């Protein structure tokens, strides 16, 4: 497949290129400045305001308040008051009504949320529109259904909420991670102070408007914006009962240390260097799509991305050739264009990290191949890249790049695939591609990863628990397991067995 595939890979102007199809931003009614959302109101932060930019153009979108320690105090106090006076006293059915209302409002304002998300994050509109926002609504609908059924969550009768939850979320799925955190917390009866990432606070601000629209009691959800210091003040606040964090392993480790011994319940959802295993009997065309979706979805800014491709040696060349041909059809550019497949890298800092690790990969002797996408002048861009001839000891095979960079390794037997897949300090997700069901099950059984996809990748469902092994964190989000992270068993005693019931 060298000479013949030229027609398939060389870039010619396409009829898809003739007319860009940008999503209109007129649906957005953005304010120039956003404050913090505390006790049901937008208030100004006491720290210096910062600006959020569009990573695709580097243009400023809005200025955002920075919350300092005093702001965090106020937010936690508001959450405590709401917990004591209102939210913990509501019936589950009533909490459920609020959550259903939020879910429906998310659906109503879906387009606006999608545009805001793509503008602020740089992800393609087709992903925010078709994946992120629908999942956000699904998460609220799902946990709305649980709110009055906590007795059936597997924790015994009448499980208790924890109190105030401090939640810190990352920039890769700003709104979705917010939903993953807030929906189960509220369903279980907790109140929340959440901090979105400093580069992507915009959709959280629109979400705050939705909370006002939904008439959610004041203080049940509070949003503080800012960088690492704000997050640190929040998780270390003495009046917080539960900490939930999604982000890098480094920060997760620091959080675990700082709250150790405080009695706070904690869930951490951290990094990953996940194996995507392709056996020689895989459905080839779908496997190629799955590899693309596994690592190039959301520019590779996915903690469960299939960044380590393990290919059976006898199909390695075929897979790599097909992958290169497929990548040559990916369209990189304006995230708001409905035809864009690959958007912008979220920040300069992240772009630098991806570049650095890619250079390391080359220096280590791996073979680098980059899709021939045109790079726009402004903004942060990194074209889809594949590294072949990667050895297991390479840094790019071990460290999380968190970008559109795929490392390809080979294996010869299922046992070797399993050993290599498990040979990582992480354990968040894995993918298996094979037409043979018995092989899929046998391999999945031996992989140490929280989520294992068979013949698909990067699929999320609110009913399915998500979380990691080892340095990928602890605790689970989603499903009733995600609910358990926000509940305490009220103490469960086996029902007394009477003589009558023995019959």
């Amino acid at each position, binding site marked *: 497949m060298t000479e013949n595939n030229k027609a398939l890979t060389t870039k010619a102007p396409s009829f898809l290129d003739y*007319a860009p*199809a940008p999503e209109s931003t007129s649906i957005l009614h953005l304010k120039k400045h956003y404050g913090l959302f505390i006790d049901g109101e937008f208030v100004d932060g006491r720290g210096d305001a910062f600006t959020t930019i569009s990573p695709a153009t580097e243009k400023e979108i809005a200025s955002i308040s920075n919350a300092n320690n005093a702001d965090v105090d106020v937010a936690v106090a508001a959450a405590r008051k709401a917990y004591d006076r209102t939210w913990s006293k509501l019936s589950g059915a009533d909490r459920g009504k609020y959550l259903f209302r939020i879910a429906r409002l998310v659906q109503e304002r879906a387009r606006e949320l999608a545009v805001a998300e793509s503008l602020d994050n740089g992800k393609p509109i087709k992903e925010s529109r078709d994946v992120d926002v629908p999942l956000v609504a699904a998460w609220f609908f799902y946990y709305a259904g649980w709110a009055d059924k906590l007795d059936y969550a597997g924790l015994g009768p009448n499980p208790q909420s924890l109190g105030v939850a401090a939640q810190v979320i990352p920039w890769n799925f700003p709104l979705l991670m917010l939903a993953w955190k807030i929906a189960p917390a509220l369903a279980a009866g907790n109140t929340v102070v959440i901090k979105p990432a400093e580069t992507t606070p915009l959709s959280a601000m629109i979400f705050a408007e939705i909370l006002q629209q939904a008439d959610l009691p004041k203080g049940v959800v509070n949003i503080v914006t800012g960088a690492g210091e704000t997050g640190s003040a929040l998780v270390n606040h003495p009046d917080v009962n539960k900490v939930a964090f999604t982000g890098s392993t480094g920060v997760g480790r620091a959080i675990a240390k700082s709250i150790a011994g405080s009695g706070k319940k904690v869930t951490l959802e951290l990094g990953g260097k996940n194996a995507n295993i392709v056996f020689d009997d895989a459905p080839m065309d779908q496997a190629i799509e799955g590899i693309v979706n596994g690592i190039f979805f959301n520019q590779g800014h996915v903690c469960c991305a299939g960044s380590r491709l393990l290919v059976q040696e006898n199909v390695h060349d075929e897979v790599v050739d097909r992958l290169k041909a497929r990548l040559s059809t990916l369209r990189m550019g304006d995230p708001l264009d409905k035809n864009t497949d690959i958007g912008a890298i979220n920040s300069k800092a992240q772009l630098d990290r991806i570049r650095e690790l890619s250079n390391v990969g080359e220096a280590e002797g791996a073979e680098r191949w980059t899709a021939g996408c045109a790079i726009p002048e402004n903004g942060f861009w990194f074209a889809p890249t594949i590294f072949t001839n990667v050895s297991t000891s390479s840094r790019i095979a071990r460290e999380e790049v968190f970008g559109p960079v795929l490392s390809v390794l080979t294996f010869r037997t299922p046992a070797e695939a399993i050993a290599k897949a498990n040979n990582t300090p992480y354990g968040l997700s894995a993918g298996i591609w094979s037409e043979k069901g018995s092989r899929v099950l046998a391999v999945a059984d031996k992989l140490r990863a929280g989520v294992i996809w068979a013949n698909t990748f990067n699929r999320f469902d609110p009913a399915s628990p998500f979380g990691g092994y080892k340095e990928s964190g602890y605790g689970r989000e989603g499903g009733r397991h995600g609910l358990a992270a926000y509940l305490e068993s009220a103490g469960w005693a086996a029902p007394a067995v009477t003589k009558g019931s023995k019959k």
Partner: protein
Amino acid sequence: MTIEQAIALAPAERAVNLIGSDLTEKSLKLHLEGLSGVDAVGLEQRAAGLGTRSIKTTSKAWALDTIIKLIDLTTLEGADTPGKVRSLAAKAMLPDPSDASTPRVAAVCVYGDMVPYAADALGSAWSNGSDNGINVAAVATAFPSGRSSLPIKIMDTKEAVANGADEIDMVIDRGAFLSGKYGVVFDQIVAVKEACRRDDGTYAHLKVILETGELNTYDNVRKASWLAILAGGDFIKTSTGKVAPAATLPVTLLMLEVVRDWHLLTGEKIGVKPAGGIRTSKDAIKYLVTVAETVGEEWLQPHLFRFGASSLLNDVLLQRQKLTTGHYSGPDYVTID
């Protein structure tokens, strides 16, 4: 073997080169069963993804004209008359009488006995075996069921070719295929291909209809596509239009993937024709996108891609009028046949 040699080879020899000199029922079966499997969920997901591409203004104008150029305007009814076929031919030549810039369709597709009337009605617009003009395609081989003996299928084909058909749309024997007699299907395609030979040594183009709705599984569609190409088909076509489901986007995507793989293997370019069930411009544009992103835009030419459709053309014409005039007109502004 070089690629040029592969193209020049007769179908059976080409298959021998690929499978080995022991081209038997068994070796053919082994070869077809060695093809990569198809994951239905993944295939349908990919097709759905391609269907969300957004096409605007200038691209849309290009797309609409391209669709017209790729249409096999079709009438395949038991009630077809010479008059109906003449009317179809007239529309093929001048699809929109109110706009002379409207391109002509690729071909008219009729039953074999209607070929002389179609050719006659097309007159100087008829390609008559040349590269220019409108082709006359004839369905043959006991269309649509394919349930007759091979000599009858061959006669059916020969008659249509003798009548002047530029293209033959044959159906495969689904009964033989589903019972695993791949060799029977292979032999029939080879025989029909031979029956497409004209006296001067040239061949009418052979489109092989797989009737994917009856093959049922995507794995079968891949096997049948590969088999049809191996046996010398110039085109692989989804459906007769008489069985539901007819053409679907996932099935067409799968057939395009087979064509792409064959091209990578041999350098040869095989055509694809989704037929039946494609009624709107919006749907047809999804197919254009799928072609462009699977095998490349090079395939968006009449000798490599066709739409088998009768009602699609009118919707395209209405959309085209909308682009030129700025407003929608009703169905009475296009002709009914």
